[in-house]
């Protein structure tokens, strides 16, 4: 063993960190989802927490909101960045391309939380940009407290970040389009394919790996992104914007039902894992 001692010693910090702060909490979460747990005492209660997850009316509501968020997140993370990346590639000038590419990632200069807080201010009833703009256009009767009315709160969260050209998705598409196999595209052009055909018949299939990565990342991110909900609406008004992850957070840190919270977390974990595997299976790479 001695000749391997150096190797084991050098990797031991990494391994220790992972075991203590990743695998131990993982096992603890899975175990405690079958218990009533207040962080001091633990009682085994079998599947009771899971039964509650599936019968709780707030959970039902949370899941339906989550479906809306995840579906719109997928559309937002793919369509606008792809369109912009394609349009920039249509331009000829190197300088124009560079300037636009830089312009569309400028928002990354601001920490994400500041971005969310800026949208909080845009929806503010008194000084928010949205209401101010409506007043400016003479549409005062359309103004409202966007995040505080149950009719608009959910869609106000969905629309935050408009027009959804996020830096990372955009860069992924921009890079991928730039490195597509040009010979195939050129020869199809010579055969008389127009721009739209090149886009739908060649670009989209060739971009499958990028779609795959973005779909997985977006779903995983979407199911876990409840900080946005905490900051923008705190789940409200009432329960108008609750999602499962937010319900889990509330179960744990507002009502100290750590076992129930762990069960919600375990369900999310299973859903994330399942969707990731499905996604990898069905979106096989062609190119």
């Amino acid at each position, binding site marked *: 063993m001695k000749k391997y001692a*150096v*190797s084991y010693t*050098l*990797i031991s*910090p*990494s*391994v220790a*960190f*992972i075991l203590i*702060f*990743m*695998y*131990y*909490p*993982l096992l603890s*979460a899975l175990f405690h989802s079958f218990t009533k747990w207040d962080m001091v005492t633990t009682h085994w209660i079998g599947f009771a927490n899971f039964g509650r997850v599936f019968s709780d009316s707030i959970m039902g509501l949370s899941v339906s909101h989550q479906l809306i968020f995840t579906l719109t997140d997928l559309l937002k993370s793919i369509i606008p960045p792809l369109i*912009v990346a394609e*349009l920039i*590639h*249509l*331009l000829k000038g190197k300088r*124009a391309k560079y300037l*636009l590419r830089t*312009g*569309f*990632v400028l928002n*990354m*200069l*601001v*920490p*994400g*939380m*500041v*971005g969310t*807080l800026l949208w909080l*201010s845009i929806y503010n009833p*008194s*000084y928010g940009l949205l209401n*101010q703009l409506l007043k*400016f256009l003479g549409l005062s009767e359309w103004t409202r407290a966007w995040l505080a009315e149950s009719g608009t709160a959910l869609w106000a969260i969905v629309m935050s970040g*408009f*027009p959804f050209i996020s830096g990372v998705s955009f*860069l992924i598409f921009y*890079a991928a389009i*730039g490195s597509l196999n040009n010979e195939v595209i050129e020869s199809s*052009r010579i055969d008389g394919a127009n*721009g739209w055909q090149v886009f739908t018949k060649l670009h989209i299939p060739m971009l499958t*790996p990028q779609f795959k*990565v973005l779909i997985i990342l977006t779903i995983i991110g979407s199911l*876990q992104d*409840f900080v946005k909900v*905490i*900051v923008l609406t705190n789940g409200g008004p009432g329960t108008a914007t609750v999602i499962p*992850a937010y319900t*889990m957070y509330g179960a*744990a*840190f507002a009502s100290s039902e750590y076992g129930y919270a*762990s069960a919600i977390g375990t369900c*999310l*974990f299973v859903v994330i894992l399942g969707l990731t595997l499905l996604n990898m299976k069905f979106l096989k790479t062609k190119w």
Partner: protein
Amino acid sequence: MKLGWFPRGIVVAVLLILLILTLVPLFLLFFLSAKDNLDVLIDFWGIPAKIKWENYQLAFEAIKLSLCHSLFVCMVTIFGSLLFGSLTGYVMARHTFPGKQLIYIMLLGVMMIPGILTIVPLYSLIVMLKLDHTFWGLILPYVAGSQLLGILLCRTFFEGIPNELFEAARMDGGTELYLYRKIALPLSVSILITIGLVTFLSVYNDYLWPLLVLDQSQQTFTVAAVNLSSGGRQDIGLTFAAYVLGSIPTIILFSFGMKYYVNAMLNGAVKA
């Protein structure tokens, strides 16, 4: 490529409109940070007669401590995650030992564990270790998570370095740590900068963990920023000035590191 079916003018116009819409929040940030409270409420669209620098002065007083906390936590986390990530990446690239593949899979398997699942037990662990209300309660879990990217990228990178370089130094009696310090690390500066930048962004931006673990007096920038914007009597100009000040660290880092970051992205960090 020829435009054919699409007139160039329309492409440029569409792109410019989208660009302006994308940057609206950024304009708003600087615009409102320069205005007086009354000014915002009464004459929202008016260009301020004179920039209210006082906003920045007051905002700095309000958030300087939280900025220091954030920067401290970021620096220590980056140091830890770069050190452990590159060491493990080095060993995984250049050594063979029993169980190597298993350990590597175990390390990367962590990426399949969603953060949401471990929030509750990790919090209970931090309390059990008496690390709540300390910055270590943030830093240690951050290092555990953020070293993974380092391990992954450093392993790939170190595998690409020609073996002769290491063999020559080993002949001269260099120890493993010597090889790592004198050969591997200096060659990997640009990759380490990228990893550091990504780590900084995620740690600086985290809201939940500082909110749960730290005292009010230890709050980080994100927590302070949310508090400022949700208080009852809000000073709008001051709040926006605080957002601007809190963005300075990311602006500085990006102006140095953007090149590396964008190149890493463009050169197929995600080339599947």
